[in-house]
């Protein structure tokens, strides 16, 4: 199985100490795993293997148990958010106007799938449901900037601005 290249883990000692104290505080409670994972995501922004391993080791449970929960719920991110967070609206109005193709083009262009981040940490890509600008469909956002009435050919030019 091929290993995917990901953004290198950049956790600090402070973050680790914070996580360990959260675990220490919660570990006696039954069903504490999800709460710990939520708190860990608050601390690190996402749940990479390094963080999940810390949780598994401290709770003395298999890493797979943590990973199974992390991939079951959409609230958990396995990848960090990029410096530029791209979200493409796949809501009904945008979708019928072709946002699916915009999304595919971005995946192809950035070499990542939805929910992932480019290895240089620059762009992350997500799908979202309606940003309340259906009149501009199809719509995507990069951080707080809204781009509307998009065509596939616009993508190169827009990404250019963030290079």
């Amino acid at each position, binding site marked *: *199985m091929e290993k995917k290249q990901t953004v290198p883990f950049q956790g600090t000692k402070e973050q680790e100490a914070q996580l360990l104290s959260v675990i220490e505080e919660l570990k006696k409670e039954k069903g504490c795993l999800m709460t710990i994972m939520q708190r860990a995501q608050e601390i690190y922004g996402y749940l990479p*293997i*390094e963080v*999940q*391993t810390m949780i*598994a*080791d401290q709770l003395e*449970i*298999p*890493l*797979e*148990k*943590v*990973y*199974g929960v992390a*991939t*079951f*719920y959409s609230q958990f991110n*396995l990848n960090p958010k990029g410096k530029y967070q791209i979200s493409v609206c796949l809501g009904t109005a945008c979708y019928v106007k072709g946002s699916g193709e915009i999304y595919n083009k971005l995946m192809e262009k950035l070499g990542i799938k939805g929910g992932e981040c480019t290895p240089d940490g620059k762009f992350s890509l997500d799908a979202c449901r309606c940003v309340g600008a259906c009149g501009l469909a199809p719509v995507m956002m990069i951080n707080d900037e809204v781009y509307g009435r998009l065509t596939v050919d616009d993508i190169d030019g827009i990404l250019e601005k963030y290079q």
Partner: protein
Amino acid sequence: METITLKINGVEVSAPAGSTILEAARLAHIEIPTLCFLKDINAIGACRICVVEVKGAKSLVTSCVYPVSEGMEVWTNTPKVQESRKKTLQLILSDHDRKCLSCVRSGNCELQKLCREYKVDDELLYEGARNHYELDESAAHMVRDNNKCILCRRCTAVCEKVQGIGVIGANERGFATYIGSPFDMGLGETSCVSCGQCIAVCPTGAIYEKDYTKQVFDAIADPEKFVIVQTAPAVRAALGEAFGLPTGTDVEGKMAAALRRLGFDKVFDTNFSADLTIMEEAHEFIDRVQNGGVLPLITSCSPGWVKYCEHYFPDMTENLSSCKSPQQMFGAIAKSYYAEKMGIDKEKMVVVSVMPCTAKKFEIGRPDEDGAGVPDVDIAITTRELARMIERAGIRFLDLPDEEFDLPLGLGTGAAVIFGATGGVMEAALRTAVETLTGEELQALDFTDVRGIAGIKEASYEVAGMTVKVAVASGLGNARELLNRVKNGEAEYHFIEIMGCPGGCVNGGGQPQQPGSVRNFTDIRGKRAAVLYNIDKNNPIRKSHENPAIKELYAEYLGEPGSHKAHELLHTTYIKRKVHEI
């Protein structure tokens, strides 16, 4: 015990309180089909094959987890029930790789059997999305093919709950759910110990051992090669099941006959090297006791257990006996002593082992398992693979006469054959260690305290003025519990036997698979173990140190147990590993 009376299909049935409908039906000689349910391992009511109608219930209920109650009326076979089961099967097949013809489980697949019974075939009734998965072939011993997985979760349950490892689990959700390792690591990159219990419980062909039967046939056909075979004790207690014989049939003689007809140049027995293991291990034990060595001494015959110890108790690898397992000792002696004695070039010798175990495939590739400068063992196959070879070669197993193993490496004692059951190595070691320590002949050879299928057993014996405390554990969850007691100072022992699989090698991951309908209602490991204890009882020689072939080996070649030469050939080293390597 309180008894409950209910009606199943109109017939009155009595069942102990707390029974499930599935169990009560079985008492009334009615079998309800199951896929996900496995007694003591997996009771999640998820697959919905075992549904039945219960009077007053709003919908069909899952009989595997539904308890019986007084006056309950159950129907197991109505058109509604059958229609529901059929639909479930159709939906499973709609996302299933239907390559039954070449599937390793064809003929003993639990899904296939149900589809036959319910007349569900491979027509594409529900066309639409299908999941496609890459095979995971990263582990030394097995392949996982999620395309044939039905998400019953028996494998993940046995891995996590019974073995306490949990390197596979359900990832993602809904239609995207699949069984895998964390972060899509291959199994070979995880702390999987290769025990193969997941293979033993899989109802379909989604998990199977790496098949080396072709390599064995090719070696046999090569005129340049001298191919010898060894068979582990537990194989003879289970091989017959693959040919339709009842669980607990002794097929030692037919097995030897079949191996000869497959064309092996010599048909030998791992029992020989199990006796050799006892000689070395008993010597090591006495030496550690008398000279202040690391105690407790823990057996090292089970490679699944050894890898578990390396991952999960790395600070206890010093406690492991440095003795190689009987499989490896056999190879080392075959390629040194036997090769020299017979004038055979060890480079041209191929040692094949038939094992109830999948971890043996991992063990042959470990470092420091090449006593004679060449790998001790070349190919390790499971009991199932041997059955496949016999079938493919057209050998009519059931019609074969009983034959003997070849000499001298085919000679084993009663002490050796019980290695295949939990407590057997301990008993065999005690027979030799006690006689060595006391210098007197044992009056009673049966150490019954260490027998039986309990997960953890303890005993103490007065030997030559000292109290020897021993413990036995089988199944890695039990091993963990026992070792934690030792680590926390709650218990103290001199000698511990651990086998990776629950019940020992008789229940190994390489033994013939039995479907849920058998596993849930039969003490398989107990019946297989009884075969071994019976062979022991009837063997005129029941102590390893009285094996004439072993005596000759020491007199002619090794000198004394624990000698320099013995260490070179028969002992090995261990690795301190981590649970997570990231």
